[in-house]
């Protein structure tokens, strides 16, 4: 039920309604786009493919937002480590001004 892969729409078949050719790093297959057509699909769009059907359009912005959130996790952590380190140094009498 769960295997679905992102692929990019590379062509539409004028003779075949509701169908597009999707590319997954060089592997191509015709998929049925009925489930995403109502929201509008164009060449170059990325869709999630499951059993030969496009299930959803992939939202680039949401992907970016997610990556940004994940990266900031690391930054927050690094910042906290820095502060903690400074506090440890102070409590151990290592002195010096904060960076």
């Amino acid at each position, binding site marked *: *039920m*769960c*295997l679905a*892969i992102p*692929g990019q729409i590379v062509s539409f078949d004028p003779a075949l309604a509701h169908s597009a050719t999707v590319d*997954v*790093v*060089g*592997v*191509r*297959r*015709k998929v049925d786009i009925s489930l995403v057509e109502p929201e509008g699909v164009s060449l170059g769009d990325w869709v999630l*493919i*499951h*059993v*030969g059907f496009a299930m959803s359009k992939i939202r680039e912005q949401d992907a970016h937002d997610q990556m940004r959130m994940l990266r900031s996790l690391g930054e927050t952590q690094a910042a906290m480590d820095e502060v903690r380190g400074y506090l440890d140094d102070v409590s151990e009498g290592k002195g010096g001004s904060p960076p």
Partner: protein
Amino acid sequence: MATASTKVRFRDAQIEMAHGAGGKASRRLIEGLFAPLLLGSSSEPLGDATHIGWNGTRFAITADSFVVSPLRFAGGSIGELAVNGTVNDLAVSGARAETLVVTYVLEAGLSTEVLEAEVSAMGRAARAAGVTIAGGDTKVVEHGKADGMYITTAGVGRLIPGVHCSPDSVRPGDVVMLSGPIGDHGITILLARGELDLEASLSSDTRPVLPLVEALAGAAAPGLRWMRDPTRGGVATALNELARDCNLCVYLFEERVPVRDAVRGACELLGLDPLHIANEGQFLAVVSPDYADAALDALHRAPGGECARIIGEVRPQPACAVLSAAPYGGTRIVDMLVGDPLPRIC
């Protein structure tokens, strides 16, 4: 070490496709039925080719059969598979193929044009590989059998001096090498069957690996412990056999295993693991750490060896298992499949 003493009994009531897929079911058939009945009480680990002593000379001998549909596919055909497959079985046992004999089982109704094409391909492949085809046999069976044609070969070869491969000689710390990208052949065949409606510019990697093996032997023979060609069942099966035969762990660094984009894409789409897919032009080698650099270098300098990589190492634990580690540290066991890999949707 898996030997005839690890009593495997073959209990299946009938033969299934899985028994020919090179995985666990194949192993059960070979160890549980063929070996006890044909090989007697030999405690030798089962490899592809065997070394025989006769009148003071040692040589290598192997037999193989080729069943593929479709007969022709991007990058090759059954005729080339037959020659290269035999040469490669001998090569990874440490031998240079000299002479082949070939049998054809032909389906009545097979077009002469198709047969000629295969036999020419076989002749060309033999010349390219430097082997002689000394003779053979032909049978014809009824229409509906043999998928066009089946080819069987037997090959004999001279031992490459200085090469003594055996799973017994493998030690923790040894390095595992792969000659090039995996999965090309199996995915090409899968796509060529046309049932999945996938297109990709991929071709079979069928080729003789002998020149690469000789380059490796030239640079690293004293440190060369084990070799295998990962055909049906893929790298996973070959390495699991090694792990079992030497009672150690083969630890893979997942991101170092070379896989072409298109193979990866097809595998992701179909839920397959490249480690389980058949290859016809690659081989695995285990080399001692002191010879690893020389070995890799020799492969890189040999034509066709540019993509060779060190993909893992031998460790003491978990014994008899193959473990694959992701770059971030997560690990998983890589098992042998039961039968052929099947596409999945879940």
